[in-house]
């Protein structure tokens, strides 16, 4: 029996209008403003900030986070979450030294397939079986980390020249890693903007029941999204391993799920789904990277940096959930 309560609660929500316009603006553009301000502050306050060396290092460090965060943004767009990305990174990286005998391309392909398979499992659990995303991917996070350890064992070094140059080489001074992250960003942006799948994804995240009733392939969209997330995580893991020329299944990709979620959230993508902000996500990842770097430049300990990050995340989520939902009506 619904008895008009549906309309009532909607009305309840619309009652809390009024102060929403600026909050909504902050939610959508805050991350760009903050990034700009912080860049500006660093230009003036940090010695040697404006040098190719510094910028290069920042971009190389942020690239894997950006790649993972893009997949995360898609998953969050479906009102889901993927906690398994760090473990998937470790798994893909652990497979590289094992299969490097097939050449760098073969090893990379195997790593990517492994990531896609984990994504497929997550997607089936969420989209077909109906397990809550946080539960399904939390389980996978633990399980896949274990599998990575099983395969990889201890730290293995990576010396295959192709992989080493992937991790450390560059085109016209821009590291491959950064180029790849930029290309992936472009592709994901196009997919969200232009593809049938991208449109269906935000509809599924925005109102799953309505999407179902409109005949959308809801399961397929969900499964695809987790596969993409797994694939991107594997890519990030391989790049990270190639850059450090080592694969450490215990440590690699640890806590990166939190950085990725943070980047997505402060980039203005609501955790409640229905929207995907690619540029915001990239800016979010850059902002978090820059905050950490700024604090390190000024000799502030890492633990403090973590606290600052936490405060920013809470503020961002507050803006989204607190007033961000208010309607303009």
């Amino acid at each position, binding site marked *: *029996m*619904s*008895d*008009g*309560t*549906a*309309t*009532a*609660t*909607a*009305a*309840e*929500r*619309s*009652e809390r209008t009024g102060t929403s316009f600026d909050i909504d603006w902050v939610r959508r553009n805050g991350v760009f403003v903050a990034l700009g301000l912080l860049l500006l502050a660093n230009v003036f306050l940090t010695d040697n900030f404006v040098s190719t060396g510094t910028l290069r290092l920042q971009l190389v460090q942020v690239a894997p986070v950006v790649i993972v965060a893009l997949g995360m943004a898609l998953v969050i767009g479906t009102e889901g979450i993927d906690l398994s990305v760090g473990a998937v990174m470790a798994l893909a990286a652990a497979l590289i030294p094992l299969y490097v005998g097939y050449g760098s391309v073969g090893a990379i392909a195997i790593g990517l397939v492994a990531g896609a398979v984990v994504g497929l499992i997550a997607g089936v659990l969420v989209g077909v079986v109906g397990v809550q995303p946080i539960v399904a991917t939390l389980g996978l996070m633990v399980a896949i980390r274990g599998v990575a350890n099983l395969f990889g064992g201890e730290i293995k070094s990576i010396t295959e020249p192709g992989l080493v140059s992937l991790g450390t080489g560059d085109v016209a001074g821009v590291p491959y890693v950064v180029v790849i992250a930029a290309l992936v960003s472009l592709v994901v942006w196009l997919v969200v903007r*232009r*593809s*049938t*799948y991208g*449109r*269906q994804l*935000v*509809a599924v995240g*925005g*109102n799953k*029941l*309505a*999407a*179902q*009733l*409109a*005949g*959308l*392939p809801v399961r397929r969209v969900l499964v695809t999204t987790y596969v993409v997330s797994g694939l991107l995580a594997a890519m990030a893991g391989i790049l990270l391993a190639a850059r450090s020329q080592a694969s450490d299944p215990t440590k690699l990709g640890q806590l990166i799920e939190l950085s990725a979620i943070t980047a997505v959230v402060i980039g203005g993508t609501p955790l409640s789904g*229905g*929207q995907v902000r690619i540029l915001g996500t990239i800016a979010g990842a850059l902002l978090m990277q820059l905050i950490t770097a700024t604090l390190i430049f000024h000799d502030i300990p890492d633990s403090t940096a973590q606290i600052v990050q936490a405060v920013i995340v809470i503020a961002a989520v507050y803006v989204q959930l607190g007033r961000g939902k208010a*309607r*303009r*009506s």
Partner: protein
Amino acid sequence: MTQHSSAATAAAAGVGDPVLQTVGVTKSFGGVHALKGVDFELRAGEIHTLVGENGAGKSTLIKVLTGVYTPDGGEVRYAGETVHFRRPADAQHVGISTIYQEVNLVPLLSVARNIFLGREPRRFGLIDVGAMNKRARELMAELGIDIDVTAELGRLGLGSQQMVALARAMSVDSRVVIMDEPTSSLETAEVETLFRVARGLRDRGVGLVFVSHRLDELWELCDRVTILRDGEWVHTGPMTEMTRLDLVSKMLGRDIEEVRAEGATEFGSSHLKAGEPALVVSGLEVANRLHGVDLTVRPGEVVGLAGLLGSGRSETVKAVYGALKARSGEVTVAGRKVRTGSVRGALASGVALLSEDRKAEGIVPDLSVRDNIALAVLPRMSQAGVVSEARIDALVDTFMKRLRIKASSPDQKVRELSGGNQQKVLIARWLATEPTVFLLDEPTRGIDVGAKAEVQGLIDELAEQGLAVVLISSEMDELVEGADRIVVLHDGHVQAELDSTDLSSSELLAALAGDREPDSQSPSPATNQAAKQAPTQTEGQHA
């Protein structure tokens, strides 16, 4: 406030003092007034039913009584004293138990544990399982329920689970038990047991509030009735003095004598209804909801589906659309069989459904008007997985003009639109799929008068263009004037089929009440024939 219950009858029925009352209770949500000064009185030792259509305020009133909502105005009295429930626990604490359609107990614990949850008999700080089971068995025996108290609750049928909920209510010595549609998913035998237990509680002096959309049950079980409509109190009186026709006309707000003149809606005259049927539904069954519904709609015909709450109107269209799993039955569109149970199959066959719940099942609030309109036809607007913006723009432009959708631009978020415009966006979404059969479930509910007229006019226009339309509406004018034929559903089957050309609202009303031959159908022994002639002396006006 008028004293609106017949004291004499109440006393004769052995009814005691008021145990739970509301006086002039108001409650609104934003601009929506869900309750507009409602008086309600439940006495000890009676079973009192609350009746009203969707939006009448039943749910809100129950939530006020059980402490889920705090009223904006007026007061709630328990055993004669004013109370202020701030949360459901407050109401439970004084002795008000609520039994919902969905049982809110712990499925993994035993029956006995559930009955005594939070009050388990203890020994040495541990639960005394032996004593607990013994007391549970005694309680069950007292209620005449045959259930193994050590069984895991989740393994029992829904009916048995509700018995357990009742037993729990009894064991906490509730003075009030509120049953909100407890029977809607029960089998007949389970309903009988439930009723027996409910009567037992009544005889012990408990006051029971019973809500059900199965009208027959009201006469079978209840002593008194309170009718609400549009958030207002309409009537309170003994069940025995009510005929079905009385009840239904009071619920729907239609005086049986006073039938409105034609012209209240935007619908024109009847349509062309020639050719082969566009939609044939035969023997459609949905577990517990539909028991063999047949329906035929020709191109250009508007067939109205009428019925009271719970009659299976929405279930019928949902099952045709594949959104509800049909147990058996066949659906054919333009001579071709449609795979049941698949929305995509139905859509591909040319069926579209404008569902009743616009917010939950229709709009994607954060998407633009444009994306909402194109939602169901995305694959058709794409090539190799890439959406053609130009084709979508053309489509959206056409429909925004044709349906006169008022939005600042196609990119405006649909949640910012008025209800009427949201509805038009959804109609556009379905028309974009180029359906042959359009199922409309309450298309004009909750939208303003202007938009309502436009939607009604549009339905007419669509039918003239040859679309087969199924129209569900709770508004009788809309059905009588909008439909060419009206199929009346009752309890999951077709009760009557009325040709709309010679139809009056009063005939429809009679059919809705399931009371076409008033004297032959007394739904329960309690309804005596004399009561039919008795004037409704208890009527009062609350404006």
